[in-house]
Each structure stands twice: as structure tokens, then as C-alpha cells.
């Protein structure tokens, strides 16, 4: 056990270092924009007087390094400053939207992970059959179509021609879980279609790679049925690569939602990000980026830990 804790602590340390580097990049990328930040914000309305006033208000007269430390230490306490556009606190604006995005991603994950693993197992079981090829073609088609295109197709079929789901995912506080799920269904299906191919193909490939191993032959020679060989003997040993690809796709679900949220007018972080970029609302942009980065790093960390735990040599040391 001590070995595992050490490994996990090490990965956690790496994750924190990565996050620190990302925060540097986010801060200095904004800093590196040409001209004064106040000029950028004011745009057409920039006169020397307004720029100077705003610079003072935003604290831009202080050195960048000091502002970075200031920004980072408040961010660590959950305070991302206040929005330039409406002067409201960034965290306050972000919080409901972050919850919405997590809900959408969670729903998509709850659908896509079981489906893709089951499809991958079945494809491995019936390798080179019609099913295997069919699943391959369908998932590859869905992954190679852009999300917004998939989204519109789904709206066409499931909202316009057959009005089953709403085409605009309008969620608000006070909705029940059922209502919320129903409203979020179309974007969740879109995301599912986008991420399923990777996970399914990795599951299939990881299992098939193991089918030539001596312990699989042994299981066959013990007269175990095919499904048991795949599910009981191959799948547990194929978990490490599958977990990694699942985590990458989960991270994608959370960070790659921008387009989907726009298509379905879903009030999530992605939409806020796009709005804020248009409004040059830098504190909000920075906060969104930092949250995306943290999620990405956290999920990869979880994948690493999951992959480590799937190895019986580490779980049960000699």
C-alpha cells in the first residue's frame, strides 16, 4: 500500500507542477497582447484619459509579476476577480455554469463509457464479423463529423422532424433531475457520438492484443466459453490502456463542449468563454481557462491512478 500512496503522491505533485505552469501561460498570454490591457478592453473608446483611468482601476500600474502573484493567490482561494463587462464577481458567474457543464459532461460520460466498452468487448468477441465492421464504420463516421454538424443533424431528426427532445437546452435552477436530463439530452447525445469511437476502438484493440497471450490460450483449453474469456480473462488485463483513453475523452467532454454548448444554447462554461472572448472580458477568460486546465489535469491524474490500481502487482505486492 505504501508503494501505491507514494506513486499517487508523486503523480499529484506532477499535476500541481503542470497546473502551475499552465497558470503562468494563461496569465502571460494575456499580458503579451500588444498594447495596454486597458486599451484592449476599451477598444474604440480608448482615449489617453480613459485608458489611464481604467489602468489605475485595474491595477495595471503595478508590475506584472506582482499582479500574477496576486491573481494566482486569489484564484487559489476561489476569487477570480470581477468581470470587466458587468462588474460582477467572476466566481459567482462561473459557479452555476460550471455545474451545468459538469452535468452535461457527466451525462455524456454516463452514456458513452458503458456503451463504448460494451461495444468494444462485443467487437472483440465477434472480431471481423459484420457487427465489428458495422460498429467501426458508424463510430468512425460520428467521430469524423464536426460536433456542430452532428448537433444540427440530431436537432433535425430528434427535434424538428420527430419532436422528442427540445432543440434548445434551456436549463435553469429549480429544475428536477428528470427535467434537466431531458433538456440536456441532445447535447449529451452529440458528445457521446463524438467520444465513443476512441474508447470503443481502444477497448477492442487492447482486448485483441491480449488474445494471443498464453493465459488466454489456457482459458480456452480449460473449456471456458468465449464471452467469459473476453470479459473475465482479457478485459481486466486490458483496463490500463482503456482507463487512459476514457480519461482523455472525459477531459475532452469537459473542455471540448464549447461548440456543442453554442449549438444548443446551453448555459455552460464554454458559452461563457466564447461570450467573454468577444467582450474582451479577460478575468473571465483566464478563470475559464484555468478551470479547464485543472479539470484536464485532474482527470489525467485519476486515469494514472486508475491504471496503477488495475495492476495486480501493485495492488498485491509480494
Amino acid at each position, binding site marked *: 500500500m505504501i508503494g501505491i500512496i507514494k506513486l499517487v503522491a508523486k503523480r499529484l505533485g506532477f499535476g500541481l507542477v503542470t497546473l502551475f505552469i499552465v497558470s503562468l501561460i494563461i496569465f502571460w498570454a494575456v499580458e503579451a497582447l500588444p498594447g495596454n490591457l486597458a486599451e484592449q478592453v476599451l477598444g474604440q473608446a480608448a482615449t489617453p484619459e480613459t485608458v489611464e483611468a481604467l489602468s489605475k482601476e485595474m491595477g495595471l500600474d503595478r508590475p506584472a509579476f506582482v499582479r500574477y502573484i496576486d491573481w494566482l493567490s486569489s484564484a487559489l482561494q476561489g476569487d477570480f476577480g470581477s468581470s470587466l463587462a458587468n462588474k460582477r464577481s467572476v466566481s459567482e458567474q462561473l459557479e452555476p455554469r460550471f455545474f451545468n457543464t459538469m452535468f452535461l459532461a457527466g451525462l455524456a460520460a454516463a452514456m458513452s463509457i458503458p456503451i463504448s466498452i460494451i461495444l468494444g468487448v462485443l467487437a472483440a468477441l465477434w472480431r471481423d464479423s459484420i457487427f465489428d465492421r458495422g460498429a467501426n464504420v458508424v463510430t468512425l463516421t460520428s467521430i469524423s463529423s464536426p460536433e456542430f454538424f452532428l448537433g444540427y443533424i440530431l436537432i433535425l431528426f430528434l427535434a424538428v422532424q420527430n419532436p422528442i427532445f427540445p432543440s434548445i437546452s434551456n436549463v435553469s435552477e429549480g429544475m428536477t433531475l428528470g427535467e434537466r436530463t431531458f433538456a440536456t439530452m441532445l447535447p449529451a447525445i452529440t458528445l457521446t457520438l463524438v467520444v465513443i469511437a476512441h474508447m470503443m476502438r481502444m477497448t477492442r484493440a487492447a482486448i485483441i492484443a491480449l488474445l494471443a497471450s498464453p*493465459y488466454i490460450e489456457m*482459458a480456452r483449453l*480449460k*473449456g471456458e466459453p468465449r464471452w467469459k474469456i473476453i470479459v473475465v480473462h482479457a478485459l481486466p488485463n486490458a483496463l490500463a490502456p482503456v482507463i487512459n483513453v476514457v480519461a482523455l475523452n472525459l477531459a475532452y467532454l469537459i473542455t471540448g463542449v464549447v461548440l456543442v454548448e453554442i449549438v444548443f444554447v446551453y448555459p455552460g462554461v464554454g458559452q461563457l468563454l466564447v461570450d467573454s472572448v468577444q467582450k474582451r472580458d479577460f478575468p473571465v477568460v483566464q478563470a475559464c481557462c484555468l478551470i479547464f486546465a485543472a479539470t484536464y489535469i485532474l482527470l489525467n491524474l485519476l486515469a494514472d491512478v486508475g491504471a496503477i490500481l488495475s495492476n495486480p502487482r501493485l495492488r498485491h505486492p509480494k
Partner: protein
Amino acid sequence: MNETVMNEKKAVSEKAISAEEKSARLLLKIRGLRIEGRVDDSWLEIVHGVDLDLRRGEVLGLIGESGAGKSTIGLAAMGFTRDGCRISGGTIEFDGMELTSSPEEDLRMLRGARIAYVAQSAAASFNPAHRLIDQHTAAPVQHKIKTRRESEEDAMELYRRLRLPNPGEIGFRYPHQVSGGQLQRAMTAMAMSCRPDLIIFDEPTTALDVTTQIEVLAAIRDIVDQFDTAALYITHDLAVVAQMADRIKVLLKGDEVEEADTRSMLEAPREEYTRSLWAVRSFQRHQKPVPPADETPVIEVRNVSAAYGPVLVLDDVSFSIHRGRTVAVVGESGSGKSTAARCITGLLPPLSGEVLYNGTPLARHFRDRSKDQLRQAQMIYQMADTALNPKKRIGEIIGRPVSFYGGLRGAELKKRVDELLDQIELEPSQYYHRYPSELSGGQKQRVGIARALAAEPEFIICDEVTSALDQIVAEGILKLLDRLQNDLDLAYMFITHDLATVRAIADHVVVMKEGKVVEAGPKEDMFRPPHHAYTDLLLSSVPEMDPDWLDDLLAKRGVDNIGEAAQQKSAL
């Protein structure tokens, strides 16, 4: 075993009703078996019409070199072919049931329940993700022969009979928590879990050290006797098959050479090929005179200790290797033989002690050594398959060290590579442009030798260079190495666990155990008693061609004095 004892055992067994009648009946009858393997897009026949008869309770040894089709035939006896193989002709009749035409589902009911399989490498054939007991009980539960609980209790009983330590507890471990010899016995127990009529043993001890092998052999023979199970025992080791089989069938490239009961086969082999198999162990080079005491050795290892992380793997090891001489370093896996080689080459910097080349100390790490120092020590590896870059042609593989160390280019380089190919007895015009995959195992090992020679070293480390090869091929390699040593005055460090190889080629022997040198001396002294207890254990554990060897040894030492138990005792 004599008739009466066998019959008595039968009488007490559950199948007592018609034991006499059953034992007379054939259990397995194979006629004209042909098996094809897929090569690119065509089918190539690899077994050409083999007949085989096996009666209940009988052990038939299948013996031959790799490529003889032993394993393929063994698996076919279960109605099974590996992917890319198919049965193309003949009949396989198991207890009245024709396997070649049976549907897969019927065969599945047979496998594990009535015919079981014991694989060569238990470490690879146990699923790393499940405990031994889960894998043991899978077949009985699957075939509805025992409940999970019954099977668990039975497993403990089998573990006890196979003399596994802590039989009540060992099954609840994962495969990586159990040693190789124990795993192999656990796999034999697993094969017994449904009390099958037939077990296929596919080289069950080949991957084990000699002292462990003997323990597994004794256990297998015991349990096969106790339950009166019929067995196909597949191996390439004649001395092993002599201990295990009632009858022996010799195979060569998918054809039967001859078949006879074990004693007559050993005493009077009829066929030329069988005699040649018997004769391979005869190559023996004379021991060269011990070098004068004041001669500076080419390589001297002086009080070297080394560790992987916190684990000490070499403990104060010293030996030296002189020009034109071969030092064999013997010991079981984990004894530190290969680690000593890594310290000499600088791949693993020692913790303390030093390595001297012609009297001058070498830097601990290979990065700090000069190019000329690196050139002087070359290696030949065990697995020629993986030691040669599959994407490079033979000419390029051998040419690389020639240009790297010798700086030769163009026509001169080609000329030197041709010379080297001549030295290893491969025709340059034929082999220069080939890829490693187009060569046989022995030829690949020759290329490995040529690559080492290309650097024009004074000293070569041969790491188990013959253990992956068939005996006849291995002998060719040993003769080649011997000739090259005489021609070029090379010093060899020969790492091996095979004492027959030591007998063949060594001048000086170093015996290692758990990172220490337990005994060292000229070969002739090492093979003459009195020995250090561990050397004695190693020597006496090497199977001999005499069918009574194992019985005699067990009678002499007692069952509790072989294998791991004896290893522990010799450590005291």
C-alpha cells in the same frame, strides 16, 4: 511401476467397475494426422500424417527439436489448433469420440474436464489478474463437476499432494506472488482439478532451473501415478523424458521417426536421427592449462558489489578471465550471473569494487570509458531474435561496428563484413542482403557472434547463447565459438545454467548463488568431488539419460531433500 500396483490403485479408484476392460481400451487414437499452418496466403503442411496410440494410465513422451510439431500434435489431441493452423487430414479419436468433426461446443465440454493442458511457462499461462484458486476452480465449476466450495477444498488437497508450501493458503495468492516452480506445480494441480483422463504436458519444466525442475518432475510423476491419468509428455530434453514416459515417440519436422518403450529406445535406438539426438552431448573440448600465476588477466572483477535500488544483487564478487580461456559462470536465475556481466560492461555501475582490463581499472560507468575500452568487451545475447534489429540487413548489422570502431567505409567495409560472414560459416553472397527474419535461430546466433567479432575485441561475454537453441544447433555454435577462440585468442565469459554446456566448453568454472561466488576452480576439479554443498546440488540435479535416475536420486535424497528445500539447506 509394476502391473499389480497399478491394478490395485485402479481397484480403489472410482472407476473400478470395469477397470480391466477400460485399461485395455485405447483412450486416444490418432491416425494420419495432418496439420497445416498459414504462411502469408498459402497453407503449409507442418505435420505430415502422424499416428499415435495412448492407453489409459499410460505416459507417452513426444520428443523432438523445435519445429518437430510436438506442441501442435499435443494441442490437436484436445481438438485444438492455434490461430493460423488447421487440421487438414486424419482422425483423432478420444474415448470413442471423433474430435476432428465434432462441433466446437462439444470440444469445449471436453477441454478442461476430460483432457487438460499444462503449459510450458506457468508464469505466462496463469492470468495475472486473478488469484490461483479462482483459476483453479474455473473449470470444475464451468463444467458442473464440482461446486466452487468443493473445488476449493480439492485444490488444497492437490496442493498438499504436490508438496506446495502452505497448501491451505497458497491458492489465495496472485501468480506474481508465487515462485516459478510452485506455479508450475499449481498449474499441474489445476489440470487435475476435474480429474481428467488425459493431461497434455507441454514442456512443463523447460523454463525452470535444474534444482526446481527435479521437484516439479517428481511431483508430476507422483500425481499422474496416484490418479492413474494418461499423459502426453512433450519435451526436447531426452533425459527428462526418460524419467517420465513409459513409451517415447521421436518426431522430426512433422514426421514420426520411431517409437518404442523408454528402455529399448534409450538402449538401442534404431534410427540414425535418434542416435544423433543421443550423441549431441558428446562435444567436449579439452581444458586448457591453467595460465601462469603472474599473467595479467584480460578482465579481472575485484570485490564487486552491486544493487538494483535497495536490493543487493552482487555481494563481493571476484574472478578473472585470461587470454584464450573460457570462464563459465553458472548458477540459477537470480544468482547474479548477468548482473556481473552488466558490471563488467559498465551498464550497471558497481557500488564498490572495481573491474580491471589488462591490469588498468575501468571507469564504473560505460559513458566514462574510452571508445577503445568499449570495443574490447563485446556481448552475445541469449535471444538472437530480439538482439538483431529486424529492419536491418545482415550486412548492415555486422557492418555497423566495423565502421563505428574500425572506421572502414565502402569497399573495405564490404570486404571486412564478407570476411566475418566467412568466419561464422555463412556464405557472404547469400546472406549479406537478407533480413534476420529470413534466418534460422542458429544462423541468427551466428550473426550475433559476427557482430561481436566485428569490433575485434579481446573479450566476449556470451550470455546463455545456446539455451534458446536445439541441442544439435547449439553444439554447432559451441564448436564455432571454440574455433574462433583458438584462431583469435579470445577470452570468453560464458554465462549459463546448463552444466552440459559448461562441461563442453569451459576451462574455469565460477558457481554463483544469491549474488555470491560459492565455489570457483578449474573445470576438472569442479566436476570431481568433493564439492561445495550447492555445487553438489546443482550437479546432482541435472537429469541423466538413465530411466532410473530420478528414482535413485529420490531414494538417495528423499522427497524432502530436493528443489527449494534443498536449496535452502545448502545455503546454511
